């Protein structure tokens, strides 16, 4: 007989001619019977000016056991290198700081925003989720997670229940998540608002600490019409315990010049007066998130919005949009845009004023300040004949902050005040099933 591929193709064509166009679209019986689905991603994140760089690899596997029962597990490994702004302000001259371990110092050149450059960390994380129907129209999901890095360990669990209504046009869900994190900072967690001391002097450092986070999520998904689906979530999050960043400091400055008060270290140590930050030991956040996907023919538009507010005085707004644009039968391009803005925490301070009484809480961590951030990028994907897909994503992230004018003192006005951040994100992914 003629070659086998030949036979298959000729039979398909003959059956197509016999049965008419209704059956000509190849709908493989095997296609949707993949029990396993594997999704993997390789990510590079790099900030400019020698700041943080991160390389990570993620593998997610999902096993379908039939009857809507699924098990999924995700393994992440990432390596972080580079420096992050420490919260101290820039000066006209160089500054020296004691590193977190208390065994060395590092120096910031004149005029530059101080970066803590002794940061190097590798993290492993494992998450697993099991979901299954509980009864007709009810779906139960339960998950657990674990992650470890050299100064931080996380353990978490979550559970959620979803119920469908109205021919599965509407879904209501409610979920609970709990996590317990143990923080063991290099050199020990510093006493809040204590001073950075010379090399070898760890008297302001304590040991390890921990924090607990409880999350409640209520979700509502609604099919609006044949081509549109909407999701709205409300979530409440309560954190308690050690919420400080043990490596962040504030500069204590002269009330007139705005320059950091200098000091002379005994042998090796800081050349200025720097105090470790202090944050409250509780934080309550609430957020409302809405997302809508709409198909315009073969194109799919996604828009999302989130509003968050918390009891630290931070309000934030996030808006995202992306448009998936098919290119031919097996590729697509998806431009993406994100805009984020947040207001500063009540206790956010650019610097502390010498002579004034210390506030109870203070932090110069740029992540608690006023800033806008924009992400622009695109994703490209290509589906292979065997159903697997590889994809690539390129994004550019830019954060621009500002400090409330009443907090800018004297000479600070002439220097870079907010450690603006820009980063490139490059991601390659591959997913397949079997």
């Amino acid at each position: 007989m003629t070659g086998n591929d030949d036979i298959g193709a000729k039979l398909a064509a003959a059956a197509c001619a016999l049965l008419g166009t209704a059956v000509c679209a190849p709908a493989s019986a095997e296609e949707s019977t993949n029990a396993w689905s594997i999704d993997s991603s390789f990510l590079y994140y790099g900030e400019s000016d020698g700041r943080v760089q991160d390389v990570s690899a993620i593998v997610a596997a999902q096993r379908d056991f039939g009857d809507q029962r699924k098990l999924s597990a995700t393994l992440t490994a990432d390596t972080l290198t580079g420096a992050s702004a420490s919260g101290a302000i820039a000066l006209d001259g160089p500054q020296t700081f004691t590193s977190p371990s208390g065994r060395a110092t590092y120096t910031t050149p004149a005029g530059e925003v101080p970066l803590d450059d002794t940061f190097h960390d590798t993290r492993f994380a494992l998450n697993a989720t099991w979901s299954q129907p509980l009864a007709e129209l009810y779906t139960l999901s339960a998950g657990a997670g674990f992650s470890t890095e050299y100064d931080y360990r996380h353990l978490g669990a979550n559970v959620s229940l979803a119920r469908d209504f109205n021919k599965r046009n509407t879904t209501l869900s409610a979920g609970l998540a709990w996590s317990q994190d143990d923080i063991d900072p290099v050199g020990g967690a510093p006493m809040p608002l204590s001073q950075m001391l010379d090399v070898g002097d760890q008297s302001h450092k304590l040991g390890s600490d921990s924090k607990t986070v409880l999350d409640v999520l209520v979700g509502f998904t609604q099919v609006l019409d044949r081509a549109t689906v909407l999701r709205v979530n409300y979530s409440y999050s309560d954190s308690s315990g050690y919420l400080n960043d043990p490596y962040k400091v504030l500069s204590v400055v002269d009330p007139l010049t705005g320059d950091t008060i200098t000091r002379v270290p005994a042998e090796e140590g800081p050349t200025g007066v720097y105090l470790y930050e202090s944050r409250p030991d509780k934080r309550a956040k609430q957020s409302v998130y809405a997302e809508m996907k709409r198909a315009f023919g073969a194109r799919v538009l996604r828009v999302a919005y989130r509003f968050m507010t918390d009891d630290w005085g931070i309000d934030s707004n996030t808006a995202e949009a992306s448009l998936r644009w098919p290119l031919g039968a097996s590729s697509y391009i998806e431009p993406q845009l994100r805009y984020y803005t947040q207001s500063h925490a009540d206790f956010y301070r650019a610097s502390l004023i010498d002579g004034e009484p210390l506030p109870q809480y203070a932090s110069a961590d740029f992540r608690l300040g006023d800033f806008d951030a924009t992400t622009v990028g695109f994703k490209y994907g290509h589906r292979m004949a065997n159903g697997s897909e590889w994809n690539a994503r390129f994004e550019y992230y830019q954060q621009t902050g500002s400090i409330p004018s009443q907090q800018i003192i004297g000479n600070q006005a002439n220097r870079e005040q907010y450690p603006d951040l820009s980063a490139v994100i490059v991601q390659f992914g591959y997913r397949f099933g079997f």
Partner: protein
Amino acid sequence: MKRSLLLILLGTLCGCTTVQPWQRDVLARPEMSLDAAPLDAAIDDHIYFSKEASSGGRGFGGGGCGCN
């Protein structure tokens, strides 16, 4: 701000129709799933959690880290 957001949401809800199961061909496309790219979402959540003061909203995060 909060009040106008709520009104927009309610307005959208009132415009919905019931889609019959046999009309779900468009909605069944993988790219129409709200969880179509879970790894992208996890990566974004992690990056923004470590660089910004807000996190999550979409679902439960994958886990804490020392990055914030």
